[in-house]
């Protein structure tokens, strides 16, 4: 950092010194022809040139180095923070938006940080040059430099004008991208309904909009860019004309003219860049604010100050008078005074129509959300008092929408414990009924899956997710609709697997297929956030008309 500043400082002085030395060389060596002057000044130029060359490389390397490091650190900080933010935050944010914080916003900041040392060097250049030319000839200096502030002003205006246009153009381009992507993805629809011409016509409109914006951007550029070149030319004109007459009057040397010309040119870029700096700074500040917004969001669910370890146990779960709503403004709470005891080793099925709150029950237990009222205990301890990490390790969950990582099958199964041996991984897979198909994959357990890897069917993904949960060997297992996307002809396979897994383990099963429900020891029927009936599958079939209704609806879907 210190060397960067030093290098920048030396470089700036060397840069400003060079024209001065050239002027001296021309004046004393050529015009006045003093002995040895030409040789000495020439050697001087070479030496200063070498110093400047050395420093320019260093300052560049160090300036960018610092800026990239800041960007990298910020990205990691953001990542770590997002990882720990509660479910409710992620429910409300769009991945795309967060991604643009991580990519574009960070880049804005990085671009601005790079500008800081450059700007210091530029300001120093401007000051030094102004002093030097004023010492040489004040009147000419004022004349030559007079147009230059406009350069700064115009560069600032240009930057302000072009930015929104460029953003609009980007937006239109993103429109092209969306439209192409959906057309290609939906090509079967386009072909099936003969909609080729409709899509082509749409693209024509989109392309016309891009054209329009791009031509407009060109017009803005055409309005400013040539002007930015023209303004310094006015300074040069002043030097040549007025300065020339000063030479004729004997008040100035030709070498001074040369020096002035070089200095006017030298100021062009510093002034242009500092002109752009203002709007670039504004954008960077806006970007920083957006990132700050994320960083100041406190994780809502954290360890208590004196959090305890989960005592040993077999997974006794008690929901005591639990109330919960996803937002305070919601008219109706999702769960109202729900009490439910699940004994160690028991398997309970939660059944109910869509929106009855069964998934919410599953998500409160690992403390993904905090209850509004009442309490939940696992093996006698309130989950809010337990160390979060221990709680979540003790509770395994298979989500409805199975998310797998872009990694090997083995790594996905061993997610809870990357150190797990191949035997443990295979055992978990076998329990989940996944071993057979995994063995048939091109690279077996080493097959890469996910976006850029092998694509699995919904049922296969669910079975891997189940294996992942099993490998963690949780006290309590939650299966949230874990068989929903399994092909009906394959469902019995996974059902057998479930039976083995559930043996002797506290399990909460959310399901609507009767065959899966039948696996549970007890069925709890939920409706509108309350328990309305409890009993075995057979009992409820006999006693509860609502239960029969709910099942019939699900049945209708499966037929």
């Amino acid at each position, binding site marked *: 950092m210190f060397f960067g500043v030093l290098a920048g400082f030396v470089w700036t002085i060397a840069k400003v010194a060079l024209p001065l030395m050239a002027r001296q060389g021309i004046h004393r060596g050529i015009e006045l022809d003093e002995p040895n002057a030409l040789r000495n000044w020439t050697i001087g130029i070479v030496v200063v040139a070498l110093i400047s060359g050395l420093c320019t490389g260093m300052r560049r*390397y160090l300036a960018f180095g610092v800026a990239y490091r800041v960007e990298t650190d910020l990205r990691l900080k953001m*990542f770590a923070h997002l990882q720990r933010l509660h479910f409710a935050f992620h429910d409300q944010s769009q991945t795309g938006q967060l991604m643009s914080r991580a990519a574009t916003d960070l880049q804005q900041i990085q671009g601005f940080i790079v500008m800081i040392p450059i700007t210091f060097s530029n300001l120093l250049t401007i000051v030094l040059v102004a002093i030097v030319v004023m010492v040489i000839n004040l009147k000419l200096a004022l004349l030559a430099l007079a147009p230059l502030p406009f350069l700064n002003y115009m560069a600032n205006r240009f930057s302000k004008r072009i930015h929104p246009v460029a953003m609009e153009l980007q937006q239109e381009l993103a429109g092209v991208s969306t439209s192409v992507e959906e057309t290609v993805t939906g090509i079967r629809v386009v072909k099936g*309904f003969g909609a080729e011409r409709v899509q082509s016509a749409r693209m024509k409109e989109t392309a016309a909009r891009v054209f329009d914006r791009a031509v407009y951007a060109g017009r803005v550029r055409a309005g400013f860019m040539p002007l930015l070149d023209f303004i310094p030319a006015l300074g040069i*004109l002043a030097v040549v004309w007025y300065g020339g007459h000063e030479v004729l009057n004997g008040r100035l040397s030709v070498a001074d003219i040369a020096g002035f*010309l070089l200095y006017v040119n030298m100021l062009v870029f510093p002034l242009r860049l500092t002109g752009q700096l203002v709007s670039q700074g504004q954008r960077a500040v806006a970007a920083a604010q957006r990132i700050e917004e994320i960083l100041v969001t406190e994780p809502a669910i954290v360890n208590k100050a004196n959090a305890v370890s989960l005592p040993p146990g077999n997974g006794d779960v008690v929901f005591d008078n639990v109330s919960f709503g996803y937002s305070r403004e919601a008219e109706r709470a999702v769960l109202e005074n729900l009490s439910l005891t699940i004994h160690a080793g028991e398997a309970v099925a939660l059944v109910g129509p869509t929106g009855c709150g069964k998934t919410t029950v599953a998500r409160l237990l690992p403390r993904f959300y905090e209850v509004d009222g009442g309490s939940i205990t696992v093996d006698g301890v309130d989950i809010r008092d337990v160390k979060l990490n221990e709680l979540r390790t003790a509770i395994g969950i298979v989500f409805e929408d199975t998310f797998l990582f872009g990694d090997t099958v083995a790594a996905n199964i061993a997610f809870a414990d990357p150190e797990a041996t191949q035997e443990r991984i295979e055992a978990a897979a076998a329990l989940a009924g996944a071993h057979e198909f995994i063995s048939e994959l091109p690279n077996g357990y080493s097959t890469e899956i996910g976006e850029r890897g092998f694509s699995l069917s919904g049922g296969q993904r669910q079975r891997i997710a189940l294996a992942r949960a099993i490998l963690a060997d949780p006290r309590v297992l939650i299966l949230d609709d874990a068989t929903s996307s399994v092909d009906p002809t394959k469902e019995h396979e996974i059902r057998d697997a479930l039976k083995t897994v559930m043996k002797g383990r506290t399990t909460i099963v959310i399901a609507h297929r009767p065959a899966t429900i039948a696996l549970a020891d007890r069925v709890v029927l939920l409706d509108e956030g309350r328990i309305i009936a409890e009993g075995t599958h057979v009992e409820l079939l006999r006693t509860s008309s609502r239960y029969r209704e709910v099942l019939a609806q699900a049945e209708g879907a499966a037929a």
Partner: protein
Amino acid sequence: MWSSHGVDEEDRLKKGETGNLLRRALRMLRPYRGQVVLCVTVLLLWTLATVAGPFAIRYGVDQGLANHNGAALNRAAVGFAISAVAVLILSRAQILLVNRIGESFLRDMRERVFDHLMHMSLGFYDSQQTGKLVARMTSDIDSLQELVQQGLIAFVTSGLLLIVTITALMFISPVLALLCLASLPLVLIASVQFQRSSNRAYLVVRERIGQTLSTFQESLSGVRVIQAFGREAANETRFAHHNQEQLDAYAYAVKISALYFPVVELAGNFALAIVVGIGGSFVHSNAITLGTIIAFVLYLQNLFDPVQQLSQLFNMLQSAGAALNKLFGVLDTQSPVQERQAAVDLPDHGNLEAVDLTFGYSEAGPKVLSHVNLVVKPGERLALVGPTGAGKSTLAKLLSRMYDPLDGSVRYGGVDLRDASFASMRERFTVVPQEGYLFQGTILDNVRLARPSATDDEVAAAMARIGVLEHFIGMEDGLHTEVRERGSRFSAGERQLVSLARAALADSEILVLDEATSSLDPGTEVEVEVALTKLMEGKTVIVIAHRLSTAERADMVAVVDAGGIVEMGTHADLVRRTGAYAALFGSWSGQAAS
């Protein structure tokens, strides 16, 4: 700052290709011939005007200052002013022209490539990766766009400036010019080297950025799983690793530029030393004038800056060239299914027949279907059943000419589909794919896809006819509800309903349906069933059945297995026959019972 483009080795243009590419690009510019000629003229004038400035100054120094001639000095000042104004006007015109021509070219390119993609048959899409096709229309055209918006003018003017400046220097004083240019070869070598290494470095940077961002995105999408398993810290370590790798890649790229830039700066300053030192001794020996020294000092700035600019722009130009090459590649790809020169319209009604139909994805490869014969009479419903991969979908695709057969033919009312006009094919056939896919826009827009000329009322009427109007009219914005906003708001069943509504609006003679395999949400499942039944009324239907109920309701069932039809008849017949269908029926009904 500098170009952040990287060009893969495999994308690099071969020697002959560049010329070819330019010729084709110029051919596409033919409609804008007048503008192009004007643009080239403006460019040349601009270059002359730019170089004229220092000439005027030299004149002023030599004729005005050296000879103590005030009038000559004034002339020089006027000359300089004129050249500056000319540059102002000409560069304005030049930016406008280059931009307009370039953007017109890009607009045409977008339309042509997209139109071409739309004309490609399904066979083409089955053999291509979606991502690559999208990249043609997005990142490839975008890199051309960037060139047009930012690079092209700089590239052309830098090149011209370099040439004209060297010419001017040689004209004023060949000896001093050669001395100044002595370091140019060194700068050129350094530039080529820089261009190569920075290209490589930026390929790595690009890859690492991709890696970091995809890890970031994955961790956001999977954040619930990560928290559920308490893997936050471990995942952070993994990300930190990628993040650091990205930083390292950047640091390396910066290092390369930090080594290159001093070379250019040094060469410029050495040239300055040469002009002053050696040029000065030439002035003493009266070989050159003081004005020449001043002009040289000014010209030097036009000498090395363009080299630096060019070396940076070169990468941009290369990746644009590679992109253009790929785009022309798409335009050169012929669709496997083509409309004949003298195509005829299909008759309004008739039997749909397959005659000795044989198909494989390649001439030499294994046959997916061989010697299939079948007849579907107007108004008849044929269900295709059979195990996965047996050829049901392929048969359906051949019957609707998504593919052309290798041998045999498909005929409608006696006309071979290969002789039919595309327009009449579109009118007679509607293919409803397995999954309801929605495009951006409202429900109305999505249904209207099947018949763009339909009014809102016609769309609503079609929806009412199959009983789905009710479902959507109740939504907040009714049929004007945006389908894509706020994520995937529409359930699979609802998407299916929209898809069926499209088919209802198309109202064509023949419906080819691919039934969804997975079960839908309980609520809409029933609605889909009802809509399907109404939709099929009075139509000739070919349905790929995955459900027993669908097969049961068909007039005819064809069991497809091992590339042929192994059984065909009514449901009742086939069940009695105790063949393949009876076995399938057995497993189906057993499953429903469990």
